[in-house]
């Protein structure tokens, strides 16, 4: 909550919250993907889903959906930008810290619950590899 306070987030978080990149809007069947990963739980307040399209062992395209607070939306958007074009091995190395660095640091109390998307991405990559 930020009653009577300014934004608790950096400009980069605000930018990715107000103008998220690569999100999947509406019907998920519109995006033809190779694998999906999911993490979190609405009961805890945050859930992320990552959809990947793979070509030549690289993430050719990526989309996401998120139920969650501003930092959850911003961090999933940031992750999608970080992962796009990377090889699967490179994408697997993206950590919560990389997302936090990219966004210019999230408030501490928001970090653990909202920077989860990389786990959904890892699950999607794992599922993709199992099917190959």
């Amino acid at each position, binding site marked *: *909550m*930020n*009653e009577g306070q300014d*934004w608790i987030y950096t400009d980069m978080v605000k930018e990715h*919250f*107000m103008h*998220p990149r690569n*999100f*999947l*809007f*509406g019907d998920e069947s519109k995006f033809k993907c190779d694998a999906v990963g*999911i993490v*979190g739980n*609405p*009961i*805890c*307040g*945050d*859930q*992320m*889903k990552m959809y990947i399209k793979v070509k030549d062992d690289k993430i050719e395209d990526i989309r996401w*959906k*998120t*139920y*969650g*607070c*501003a930092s*959850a*939306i911003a961090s999933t958007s940031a992750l999608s930008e970080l992962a796009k074009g990377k090889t699967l091995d490179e994408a697997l190395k993206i950590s919560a810290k990389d997302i936090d660095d990219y966004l210019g640091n999230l408030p501490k*109390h*928001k970090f653990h*619950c909202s920077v989860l998307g990389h786990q959904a991405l890892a699950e999607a990559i794992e599922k993709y590899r199992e099917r190959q």
Partner: protein
Amino acid sequence: MPNILNASFQAAEGESIQLYLDAEGIVVSTGSACASGDIKPSHVLMAKTGDAEVAHSSIRFSFGLDNTEADIERVMEVLPGIIERLQKISTIERNIK
């Protein structure tokens, strides 16, 4: 308190609604002032609904003497679009059309 209204929206998280409204110049909260900064769902909403997802998907309007009908109309101009946008990027499927 008769001047306070809680509203819950399926599949749209409270803080995100709050901050998109903030960007439109409309100030709401996601819980009581005495729980400000707490990211746990409101214990009052938990007691009333027993549903953490509903409690997380809630905002709280506090009306004062300075509020006008035009303020309410302004909220109703922007709020439906904010909710729809959040629902369309949400992982939670909506059960109602």
